[in-house]
């Protein structure tokens, strides 16, 4: 949990990323996908913030902007770098990104395609060290051994190739590589969604352990709310490029204030046949980010929608200390969360 003396590691303000839609022979611009549209949040040092929401809502695009894998259309991404100064990752020229990249690393979803099959574990894990000219060969060997031990793999494995490893072990290799340069921020995009149930638990536990041990900060992208509950301090729910609700994990799950969050929570199948819920089945599909509905983007699927929702776009407001909601009716509705 964020303490009184928390250090703000990342502060994202008004982030936007629009992609052009090109049509026809001349590839003329025919519109824009508003993939991320005015997103603001912060992440304190040592905490985990999760971004959740349906496919296409802009989670990965947000994460890729923060890593400057893509350049945002607008907004600020303020990152406190190791030596103190706060830099705006969004506007930094490419030449000055390199030292920052060491401090932010990514864990990928697919442990099968993200590791080069022709390179040994040593090559893979030491790759960031080599790319940044860190250490002698022997120092790298020692560092890789240490990293493998840290993620629960035997150092002897470093001469082997990734194909000999299971999905869970490959994800451990990916984590070891991400940790090689002692990053302060780890961005994990669906780190366990390609893994088997029993292996998911092992990787989530590893992430918790490493966070405690190394003081890591996580920005987690996930669509599985059960996974999110196990590792997050706070959660931001996204819908069509915008954050619609953001608060600490416990509150989001037990007392959601946005109808979309309520529907998401209710859709999660509960592993208990006695709880066969009267689920809220959200009809229809996610709105098109190139052509969103008027007013509140969620209104065509919202069971609480009133006339105002069709006309006025709600703003993200702090309805209780630390609880941000973007809904005209946030203060009057009593919504259903999940019990303990």
């Amino acid at each position, binding site marked *: 949990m964020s303490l009184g003396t928390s250090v703000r590691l990342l502060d994202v303000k008004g982030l936007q990323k629009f992609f052009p839609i090109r049509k026809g022979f001349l590839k003329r611009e025919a519109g824009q996908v508003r993939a991320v549209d005015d997103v603001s949040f912060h992440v304190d040092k040592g905490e985990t913030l999760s971004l959740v929401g*349906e496919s296409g809502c802009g989670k990965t695009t947000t994460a890729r902007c923060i890593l400057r894998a893509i350049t945002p259309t607008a907004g600020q991404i303020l990152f406190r770098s190791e030596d103190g100064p706060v830099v705006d990752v969004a506007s930094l020229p490419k030449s000055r990104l390199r030292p920052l990249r060491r401090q932010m690393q990514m864990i990928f979803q697919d442990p099968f395609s993200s590791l080069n099959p022709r390179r040994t574990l040593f090559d893979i894990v030491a790759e960031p060290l080599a790319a940044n000219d860190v250490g002698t060969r022997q120092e790298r060997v020692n560092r890789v051994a240490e990293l493998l031990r840290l993620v629960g793999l035997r150092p002897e494995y470093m001469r082997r190739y990734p194909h000999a490893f299971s999905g869970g072990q490959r994800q451990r290799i990916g984590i070891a590589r991400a940790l090689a340069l002692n990053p302060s921020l780890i961005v994990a995009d669906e780190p366990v969604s390609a893994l088997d*149930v029993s292996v998911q638990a092992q990787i989530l*536990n590893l992430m918790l352990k490493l966070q405690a041990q190394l003081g890591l900060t996580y920005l987690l992208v996930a669509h599985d709310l059960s996974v999110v509950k196990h*590792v997050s301090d706070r959660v931001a729910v996204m819908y069509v490029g915008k954050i619609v609700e953001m608060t600490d994990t416990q509150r989001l799950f037990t007392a959601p204030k946005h109808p979309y969050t309520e529907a998401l929570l209710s*859709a999660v199948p509960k*592993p208990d046949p*006695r709880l066969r819920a009267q689920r809220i089945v959200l009809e229809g599909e996610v709105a098109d980010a190139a052509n969103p509905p008027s007013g509140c983007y969620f209104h065509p699927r919202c069971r609480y929608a009133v006339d105002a929702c069709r006309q006025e776009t709600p703003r993200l407001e702090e309805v209780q200390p630390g609880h941000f909601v973007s809904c005209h009716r946030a203060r009057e509705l009593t919504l259903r969360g999940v*019990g303990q």
Partner: protein
Amino acid sequence: MAENQTPILSVRDLKTYFFPDEGTVKAVDGASFDLYPRKTLGIVGESGCGKSVTARSILRIVERPGRIVGGAILLRRDSGNGRGTEVDLTQFDPESREMRQIRGGDIGLIFQEPMTSFSPVHTIGNQIVETIRLHQDVSEQQGRRKAIEMLHLVGVPKPERRIDEYAFQLSGGLRQRAMIAMALACGPRILIADEPTTALDVTTQAQILDLLRHLQEREGMTIILITHNLGVVAEMCDQVVVMYLGRVVEQGPVDAIFHAPKHPYTQALLRSIPSIHATVRTELPTIAGSIPHPYNRPTGCPFHPRCPDFMPGTCDRSEPGLHPAGENQDVSCFLYHPA
């Protein structure tokens, strides 16, 4: 209860092995279970435990170098006036006329990844019509009308337009609906759904599960639901089969499996799943070790190297069989049946 009914499908000691050059993979190694009419049977287990191969064996679409090496798959058909006939699917040639009738006609199949089951060069409509005409003597026109009706039934909006689209033009949820429409086009009594919602968002998953439930009520279908998502099993199934390394280690009514699991593997699996009811930021109990490589099957009980209740000298010597333990529940473990 299901017990006083006759199963519509019985799998008996099924063995399906693969024979690649490197050795033998016993993908399914003596699996037995019964499927009762109008019920949903869930098959669960970690990946590689043989769930999909079991499904493919029932439909006789196991690919080379795999084949059924033993056991029986008994399909019972109603021939009116309460009397039924029984056929053993393992006795047919996979390419025989009977098997082709059974695939799609008696038993429909939907997969995890609808993208791979639709051809990219034909419209979804053409493919559904083709399936219909494979089983029913109808004109192109009638087939098309039926296909539109099916797409409508599974909740594809504007089916008369969507029918001329290609799979890649549809969202994941619509694609999955189109595949269900194709699987149901010839009115199968049994639907096998292999990880039907694994690639989908929770909201789309809820829509598809709802759809399956409604179709079951309306059409009186029997469903085999294969998934590693225990939440989906808890919400959908009447009976549950738990598999480990090609064998059924436990089976029983859904409530017993979730509230009184007997096999150490079932217990461990249930403990290890991330739950939405969990306390925030807590470690999950995990299952020790990992699934053995298929070439290195442990001797004795296949779960013994990972089992917290392992009894040396017993569990590593002989293999437990599946026997009754409690009402309607079967378990394969020496804790319940002395060696």
